[in-house]
């Protein structure tokens, strides 16, 4: 069932891209906050390489921690390209570049999913 595996992979990448978009949006919103350090998410191949660890709930009172989403995607400090006098390291131009990258990758991702879905549908319908 390799087709199904592709859908899983595609949805994980879409999830990662959305988290990255949320991070970019946090950076842009805090572009004028004194002392704010720009962030970025770990590269996708690193996220893919690490096995998903979920916490075992040994007590019914334990709170469930999301296996996916922002909690699972590690954030790291972005490379400092500029720093202004109030110790803010957000570079708006770099954020726009990142945002464009996310858009492109997301478009590619959804196109591939669409193509695979069409292939599956044509094999099912005959």
């Amino acid at each position, binding site marked *: 069932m390799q087709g199904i595996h592709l859908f899983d992979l595609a949805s994980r990448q*879409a999830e990662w891209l*959305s988290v990255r978009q*949320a991070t970019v*949006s946090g950076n*842009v*919103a*805090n572009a004028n906050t004194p002392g704010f350090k720009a962030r970025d998410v770990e590269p996708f191949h690193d996220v893919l390489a690490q096995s998903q660890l979920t916490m075992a709930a040994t007590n019914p009172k334990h709170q469930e921690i999301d296996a996916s*989403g922002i909690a699972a995607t590690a954030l790291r400090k972005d490379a400092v390209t500029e720093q202004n006098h109030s110790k803010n390291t957000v570079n708006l131009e770099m954020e726009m570049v990142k945002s464009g990258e996310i*858009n492109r990758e997301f478009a590619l991702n959804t196109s591939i999913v*669409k193509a695979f879905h069409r292939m599956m549908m044509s094999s099912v319908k005959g």
Partner: protein
Amino acid sequence: MSDPLQAALKVAASGLSAQSTRLRIVSENLANAQSTGKTAGSDPYRRKTVSFATELDRTTGVETVRIAEVGKDTSAFVEEYEPSHPAADTRGYVKYPNVSMVVEMADMREANRSYEANLQVVKQARELIAMTVDLLRNS
């Protein structure tokens, strides 16, 4: 679990509101650039400053921005010799606000630029959501 794209929209919205507050403060400063005191020797309008702070949004886990405080610029007032002015002190000097047009214009442009960047993020997030929804269409 919350949707990261919804979180992105939320953060951008907080940025938009912070920058518009900043623009409001700039316009208050510009509007009152010539506001002197009413009585003789009294202080005129004092320039307002605005500062931002990061705030962790606990429901989505992302960092939004908020207005930390609207402060006062403590720099000295501009004094001009106008003995006939109702706000002139005993020496004939009138205190004018410590508002500099150039500084306010620069601040305005900066706020405008940041606002546009936030708006761009909103557009981007909406596009990503639309792309996902389009998967359901014509398939």
